[in-house]
C-alpha cells in the first residue's frame, strides 16, 4: 500500500466545506437508532467548537427511504426536498448540513438535476408554492455532517482527551472506515476524497491517531440496501453482504469500525449478532465482535464524553474493548441506566457472541 498514491487521488477530490452557519437536518434512522449521535454532533459543534448550527422541528423526512424502495416518485421527493430548503431559506441560512447519507445523496442528486434541467426546478418551485406557499433557494453548500467533522477534525484533535491509540502499547488502533454508498458513489466529486478511496473518515482516523485498515471489500455495501432488508425474503442477501465484508476484514484484526451512514453502523453491528447466532462465527477478539461506531460517537469519545451519554449501550457489540484500549474510564454499572438513573433493562445474553 502506497499512501502517497492515495494522497494524490485525495487531492483531486477537494470539496468546499464551510466552517460555520449551518442549517441542520436529522436522519430518520439515526434519530431512532443512535439519537445520541446527532445530539452530540450539535453539542460538539455548538458548545465545544462554538459554531452556529440551526435546527427546526418543522423539517421532515427527505423521502429517501421511499425513493430507494421505489414507492415514491422523484417529483414528490423534489417537493419534499424543496420544502426543507424553504425552511433553510426562511431561517436565513445558506449552508445545509445533512445527518443522513442517503439524504445527502438525494439532495446532491436533486440539486444536480435542477441545475441540469432548469425547467424541472421551475416546476418544483411552482409545485411547492402551490402546495405550501413557500419559496426556496438552493443551498450554497450541502455538506454531510461527517464532512463538517472532517473539516474540523484538527480542532477536535486539539481539544481531544483521548486518542485512537492503545494506551498500553502505544500502538495506533486499527480502524476500519465504512462509507455509506450514497455518500460519493453517485457523485464522486461531492465526497471528500472521491468514491474509490474516500478520505472523509480516513482523515478523522488519521487526525485522531488511528491506523486505517484497507481491506479488499472496503468498497462493498454494508448490506442494508433498503429493499434487501425491508423485504424479509431478501434479508439473507442483506446478511450475506455484511458477512462478505467481515470475512474480508477479519485477517486485518481491526479494533473498531467507524461509519458515516445511518444504516451501516446499524447493520454492521446487528448482523454480527445474527451471523454469530446462525453461523456460530464471531469476529474480533475473544468472540466479542468488532465494535461499530458512528463518527460522532468517536468524536465524542475522543473529546472525553461519557460512553453511556454517547449511547454506546444501545450497540449490540459492546464498546468496552475499545474503551479499555483507549483508556477511557466507564462505569459498567451505569451502562444500562437511563439519564434519570432508571434501569433500561439488560439485553438477553446471546449464545454465541459475548456482549455485555
Amino acid at each position, binding site marked *: 500500500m502506497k499512501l502517497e*498514491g492515495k494522497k494524490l487521488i485525495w487531492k483531486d477530490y477537494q470539496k468546499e466545506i464551510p466552517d460555520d452557519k449551518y442549517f441542520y437536518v436529522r436522519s430518520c434512522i439515526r434519530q431512532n437508532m443512535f439519537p445520541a449521535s446527532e445530539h452530540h454532533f450539535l453539542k460538539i459543534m455548538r458548545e465545544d467548537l462554538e459554531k452556529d448550527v440551526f435546527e427546526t422541528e418543522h423539517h421532515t423526512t427527505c423521502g429517501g427511504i421511499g425513493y430507494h424502495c421505489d414507492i415514491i416518485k422523484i417529483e414528490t421527493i423534489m417537493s419534499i426536498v424543496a420544502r426543507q430548503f424553504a425552511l433553510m431559506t426562511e431561517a436565513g441560512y445558506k449552508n445545509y448540513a445533512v445527518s443522513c447519507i442517503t439524504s445527502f445523496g438525494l439532495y446532491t442528486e436533486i440539486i444536480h438535476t435542477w441545475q441540469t434541467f432548469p425547467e424541472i426546478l421551475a416546476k418544483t418551485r411552482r409545485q411547492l408554492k402551490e402546495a405550501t406557499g413557500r419559496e426556496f433557494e438552493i443551498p450554497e453548500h450541502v455538506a454531510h455532517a461527517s464532512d463538517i467533522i472532517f473539516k474540523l477534525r484538527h480542532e477536535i484533535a486539539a481539544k481531544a482527551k483521548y486518542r485512537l491509540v492503545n494506551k498500553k502499547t502505544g500502538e495506533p488502533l486499527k480502524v476500519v472506515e465504512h462509507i455509506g454508498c450514497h455518500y460519493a458513489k453517485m457523485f464522486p466529486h461531492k465526497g471528500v476524497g472521491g468514491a474509490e*478511496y474516500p478520505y472523509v473518515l480516513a482523515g478523522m482516523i488519521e487526525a485522531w491517531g488511528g491506523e486505517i485498515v484497507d*481491506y*479488499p471489500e472496503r*468498497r462493498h455495501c454494508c448490506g442494508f440496501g433498503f429493499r434487501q432488508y425491508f423485504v424479509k425474503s431478501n434479508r439473507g442477501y442483506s446478511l450475506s453482504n455484511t458477512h462478505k465484508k467481515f470475512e474480508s476484514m477479519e485477517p486485518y484484526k481491526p479494533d473498531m469500525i467507524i461509519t458515516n451512514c445511518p444504516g451501516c453502523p446499524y447493520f454492521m453491528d446487528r448482523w454480527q449478532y445474527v451471523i454469530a447466532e446462525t453461523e456460530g462465527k464471531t469476529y474480533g477478539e475473544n468472540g466479542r465482535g468488532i465494535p461499530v461506531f458512528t463518527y460522532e460517537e468517536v468524536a465524542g469519545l475522543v473529546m472525553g464524553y461519557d460512553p453511556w451519554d454517547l449511547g454506546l449501550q444501545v450497540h449490540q457489540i459492546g464498546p468496552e474493548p475499545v474503551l479499555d484500549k483507549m483508556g477511557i474510564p466507564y462505569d459498567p454499572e451505569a451502562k444500562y441506566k437511563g439519564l434519570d438513573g432508571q434501569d433500561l433493562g439488560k439485553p438477553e445474553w446471546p449464545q454465541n457472541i459475548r456482549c455485555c
Partner: protein
Amino acid sequence: MLLEKYMEMMKETVVIIGGGPAGMEAALSLAGRGYKVHLVEKTNALGGHLARWDRLFPQQDPAQEILNELVNRIREADDRIEVVYNAELQYIKRRMRGMEVLLSNQTLLQADAVLVACGFDLFRAERKEEYGYGIYENVLTSADLERKFKEHKVVCTDGRTPEKVAFVHCVGSRDEKVDHTYCSKVCCVTAVKQACEIKELYPEAEVFNLYMDLRMFDRYFEQMYHRAQSHYGVHFVRGRLSEVAETVDGKILIKTEDTLLGRPMKLTVDMLVLMVGMQACAQTAELAEKLDLKVSASDHFFETKDLFLRGNHTHAKGVFLAGACTGPKSLPDTLQDARSAAESIHRYLTD
C-alpha cells in the same frame, strides 16, 4: 541540368518535431531524397517509447536492435540530418517562402516544411482509480513490466516470484469514463506477448488475460494468440476488471465477470499488469495552436486532411503529420506512415 536541380533540392529544409521512430524514419526518408532535415527531440536521446521497450510483437524482436539501426543510420546521414536535442517548438512564423521555426533553446531554423511526429503518451493508469495503480504494490502498467523485462527483474516488490499474474486489457482505451472512446490497437497483442514472456520466465505461473475483445488483426497476431493458449496455457477471460484490492498478504484481489459464462469471478494474483493505451501527447493542443492544426474532438489526436489520399496532410500549408500523433499505431504502421509522410512532403516540395 540534373545536378542543378539536385543542388536546388538540397537547399530545401524540413523540420521534424519528435525524435521517435516516426521522426527518425521520416528524417531518413527525406535525407535519402536529398533534403536537409532538422530533427527536434525534446529529450536528450532519440527513440521515444521504443527506447523503453524490451521486445516487440509479434516475433519478440529486441527493440534495442531496431532502435540502434535507426540511430546508426541517422548518424551516418549526419551531413543531411541535424538532430537538435532538448528542444521543443517555441513558435512558427510563416514567410513568403516556407517558415521560420524558433525552438525553445532559441535556435532559429528555416523550414520549407514541418513534420509533426510527436507521437503519443501512455495513458496514466492512476486515472482508473479502481485499479489501484500507484496505491497497491504489484499493480503495474505494461510499460513498467516492459522495463522489468529489460532489467531482467520480473519479480514482485518484495522479491517474490509471481505465481499468478493477470493482464488487464483496454486500460484507458474504449472507456468513455476517461474520454478515450477509441481502441489503442497495440495493447491486446502486447498483453499476449507479455503473457507469453511471463510463461517463458515462469512456466509454472498461471497467467490470466482479462479482455473485452481480442483484436488480433495483424499478421502473425492470431498465431501468437493461439500459441499463448495452446503452448503456454495462458487463461483468457472475457471480462473487464471492475475493482482491485490488496489482500492482507500484499496480493492483489481482482474482480471481474467471466462474460462467456455469465458468472462473476474473483481471483488473487501476485502481479496485476494494466495494459495502458495510447493517448494524444500532452503537447498536442499547444502544437495545434502554434501550427494551426485541427484536433479530433472524438479522440484528441491530430486530424489529418483525410483518411485516404492525404493521410499525412494537415489543413495548414507545409505542415505534415506522421506516426502515432494521428492515432494509435503499431511500430510497423508508424514506420510506414513516416515513409508515407516523407513522400507527401517530397511531392509538396517538388510540386
